[in-house]
């Protein structure tokens, strides 16, 4: 596993685009520690591959738990990679998200696994697991991330790894 790039934000931003991802690995592993400027307590982070936008061609299955209830859902149009910590959560806490993309450089559909948690040492906590198939048949050369119009806060960190096997 080799780090491709890492960045900690020193200013707030709406979108983050990771471009020119090298095509020399088998898989990609994106690790995020983020906080949003939102105030709903239920904002999400989305990530799109290779220039896709909403609505995407995909198939996502999600399992969500918050300590008292669990639920599951499916969708095929948009990428929701977990709830993010925002201004309603404990100060100075960041939600954690990992996104594993297998065989990202092939022309096969892209299998993804996402783990996410918005733990804040308070009641508003959500754990989130998602598996899905992004039905793009081109290599993943870029990843675009957004928080639904809210801002990535200063201190948010993102690191992209390439994995060879």
């Amino acid at each position: 596993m080799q780090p491709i790039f890492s960045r900690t934000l020193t200013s707030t931003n709406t979108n983050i685009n990771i471009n020119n991802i090298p095509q020399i690995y088998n898989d990609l592993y994106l690790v995020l520690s983020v906080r949003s400027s939102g105030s709903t307590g239920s904002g999400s982070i989305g990530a799109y591959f290779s220039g896709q936008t909403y609505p995407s061609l995909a198939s996502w299955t999600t399992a969500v738990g918050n300590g008292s209830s669990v639920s599951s859902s499916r969708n095929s149009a948009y990428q929701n990679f977990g709830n993010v910590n925002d201004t309603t959560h404990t100060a100075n806490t960041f939600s954690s998200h990992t996104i594993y993309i297998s065989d990202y450089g092939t022309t096969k559909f892209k299998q993804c696994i996402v783990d996410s948690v918005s733990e804040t040492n308070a009641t508003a906590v959500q754990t989130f697991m998602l598996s899905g198939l992004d039905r793009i048949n081109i290599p993943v050369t870029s990843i675009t991330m957004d928080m639904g119009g809210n801002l990535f806060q200063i201190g948010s960190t993102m690191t992209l790894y390439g994995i060879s096997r």
Partner: protein
Amino acid sequence: MTTPTVIEVDCSTGISTERPMTADEIQAMEERTAAFAAEQAEREAADAAKAAAKASAEAKLAALGLTADEIAAL
């Protein structure tokens, strides 16, 4: 409202640049946000209905004479 901005990271050079979002990017982001909100509202409504049905069932079982421990054991 703060002007939406994008950080562009170029993995081949390691250089990051910042620019304003395009109209297309803003529209795509807004559509995704609306879709997520609708799905989340649907999920929360389903959770609330399930919780209400559970509470109702437990009340009916209690009215039949079951203890709280007996109901929890079901």
